């Protein structure tokens, strides 16, 4: 406006007549354009928020069920005639009784309870209780007996997992309509479940073993947990941190502070940027070819996973480290050099400490990215029925076969039993909690320690 009035010309003639209080057509147009742009911006933000809300509700709505599990309280009579035929409590003989020998005892225990409570049910055989009890129950009882053979002959109270269909019914995932078409469980069993729930024999409880447990086979989703693969991810992140931070920081300090500007460093620089854009599956193939087939590192090992993810994380760390080194003003270096510090002293005593918050933030973001990565793990054998044993000791954590959180979630999502679907969503909640914690730490570090000049 000021321009238009201060430089009068033939075009501005009408403007002389106008008042500042009356907007002319051009001003209105400009204001309207601004209002429109604000609206576009706001709606973009709103759409983003709506997606976030939809995503979070879907994840939490689908996944929260995995943190609860139905348990059956059962008083199991550990029949010596079945578990210790010789009667001498010889542990080797007791071990010979497989889980299949324990299943009838547990079914009998639940059936006895049903009879004792006088619940009206069409079932008259202990075997009919099979549909209620998880296949994991026998292993729980057997482990207890082997750990403590003196229990044989006694009646012991166990808290056993309910079968996944029963669990689904109590959580509302399995309805009576769907049961009519499901041959794994029928309406009579659900009636029995209702009765047992009223008696407090079957109850839902917090499912700690979902967070700490190991993966389970396809036939018993109720037992599956993410614990072992969380450890797998943890050891992978240790490898990534231990390798990519020193290598990345050393490379960036050299490139930023010491290297001369020439064609070679230009090429290196361009390649680092390119590397950051390489799809992660490419690193997986590289890992398979180099670490497993050439170097003969073990399959499915978090060590190999960590090495592959290190390659993926390095460019991110180098780029962010160089950016934070660049952000340290040259006056600091000049001052250090001016009082007689060597080049290396100026870097390590002054520049690096000042750049540290930025470097750590970049590292944490890089780690968070690596934590959520699945594709390269597919190729180095970390997807499947793998996260079944807790690693033994520190070295075992790196080389024992293991999975990782995202790989485990992917594996669960593939499985046939619909109960695994719930587990997959629950796993996503845990993964998101980890990622958010890491990002919050990064933000806090930046807020607290970053200095601006």
């Amino acid at each position, binding site marked *: 406006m000021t321009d238009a009035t201060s430089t009068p010309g033939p075009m501005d003639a009408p403007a002389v007549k106008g008042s500042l209080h009356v907007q002319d057509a051009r001003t209105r147009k400009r204001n309207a354009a601004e209002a429109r742009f604000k609206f576009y911006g706001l709606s973009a933000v709103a759409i983003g928020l709506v997606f976030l809300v939809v995503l979070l509700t879907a994840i939490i709505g689908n996944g929260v069920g995995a943190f609860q599990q139905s348990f059956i309280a059962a008083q199991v009579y550990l029949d010596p005639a079945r578990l210790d035929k010789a009667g001498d409590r010889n542990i080797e003989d007791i071990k010979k009784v497989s889980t299949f020998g324990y299943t009838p005892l547990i079914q009998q225990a639940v059936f006895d309870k049903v009879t004792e409570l006088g619940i009206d049910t069409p079932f008259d055989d202990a075997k009919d209780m099979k549909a209620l009890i998880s*296949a994991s129950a026998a292993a729980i009882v057997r482990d207890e007996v082997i750990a403590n053979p003196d229990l044989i002959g006694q009646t012991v109270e166990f808290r056993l997992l309910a079968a996944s269909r029963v669990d689904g019914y109590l959580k509302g995932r399995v309805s009576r309509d769907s049961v009519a*078409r499901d041959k*794994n469980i029928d309406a009579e069993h659900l009636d029995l479940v209702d009765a047992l729930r009223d008696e407090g024999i079957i109850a839902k409880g917090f499912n700690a073993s979902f967070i700490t447990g190991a993966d389970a086979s396809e036939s018993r989703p109720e037992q599956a947990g993410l614990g072992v693969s969380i450890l797998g991810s943890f050891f992978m992140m240790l490898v990534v941190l*231990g390798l990519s931070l020193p290598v990345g920081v050393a490379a960036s300090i050299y490139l930023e502070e010491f290297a001369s500007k020439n064609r070679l460093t230009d090429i290196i620089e361009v390649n680092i940027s390119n590397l950051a854009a390489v799809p992660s599956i490419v690193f997986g193939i590289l890992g398979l070819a180099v670490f497993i087939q050439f170097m003969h590192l073990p399959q499915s090992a978090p060590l190999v996973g960590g090495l592959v993810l290190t390659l993926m994380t390095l460019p991110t760390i180098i780029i962010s480290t160089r950016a934070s080194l660049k952000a340290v003003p040259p006056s600091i270096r000049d001052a250090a050099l001016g009082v007689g510090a060597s080049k290396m002293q100026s870097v390590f005593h002054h520049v690096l400490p000042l750049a540290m918050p930025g470097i750590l933030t970049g590292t944490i973001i890089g780690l968070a990215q690596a934590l959520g990565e699945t594709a390269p793990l597919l190729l180095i054998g970390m*997807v499947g*029925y793998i996260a079944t044993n807790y690693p033994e000791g520190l070295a075992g954590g790196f080389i024992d076969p293991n999975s990782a959180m995202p790989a485990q979630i992917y594996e669960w999502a593939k499985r046939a039993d619909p109960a695994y679907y719930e587990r997959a969503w629950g796993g996503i909640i845990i993964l998101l909690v980890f990622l958010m914690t890491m990002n919050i730490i990064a933000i806090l570090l930046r807020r607290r320690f970053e200095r601006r000049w």
Partner: protein
Amino acid sequence: MTLKLTASALAIAAVSASAAHARDNVQVAGSSTVLPYASIVAEAFGENFDFPTPVVESGGSSAGLKRFCEGVGENSIDIANASRAIREKEIEACAANGVTDIIEVRIGYDGIVFASQIDGPAFTAFEPADLYNALAPKVLKDGALVDNPYTTWAEFNADLPDVEISAFIPGTKHGTREVFEEKVLAVGCEITGAFQAMIDGGMSEDDAEDACIAVRTDGKSVDIDGDYTETLARIDSNANGVGVFGLAFYENNTDKLKVATMSGIAPSTETIASGEYPVSRPLFFYVKKAHIGVIPGLKEYAEFFVSDEIAGPDGPLSEYGLVSDPELAQTQAAVADEQTMGGGM
């Protein structure tokens, strides 16, 4: 601090390189169809024996056998799961890498079923001819071989629903696809007379056989390269869709899918075991004999897999959907004797 970390990481890498030669768990890889069964067995094995739970990876029969044949030694896998028999070419590749003594173990049979959305149109009975007419690129119509003109099922079989053809079949990397081609498409090709027409049209027998198992590419048939869960998702969102599933997968999702009969026979473990239901295939795993005695628990795992309480008609595998092998006793004996392929001991 960083220096220490690097040093320790390097030390660990060095340790692991040597530790890789002291593997104490059985490693299995291969078919994603066999994976559920193998995981059930591995889990029970870990519970009942003092050995660690074996590790079972998926990835497909071919990928598994390829890794199996990479060589002998603790860095290669001990067992390959396969939803088809090992091929001559693969045996040769194995031999070239020193894997000569292979024990073939047939664990049972798997049925392949055709299912659609439970509330969708009434796809209740298929014949191989129907699927051929629906999916082949060239069909016999009014005595002449023409480009497939059909867009709805009712056009060639009035008993089928009058809805758009939309089929979801396993992609070519799946072992299931091969069975589907062999036992459905090729049979339908012969029954409809298309095969004869191709021969009469001057094609060689081999070319005609290949042409018989081709699938139309106009979008009416979709290859699913992922798992059955993906096929299920497609069927879920498309009421007219017909999908190919494994029997075990179908039995776990009977509340969402309805199955069609094939040549009048409903698929079940009984009809498949008796051979009445035509679309089934044997499932196998292959054991590297050189690893027996080196990898602890390998032979025990193989024996446990085929034992009556696991693979028998009342075992957990059959409960999950595996059709138990009527000749299981022979398989058990073969595993106990470590009989290798080609009859060697």
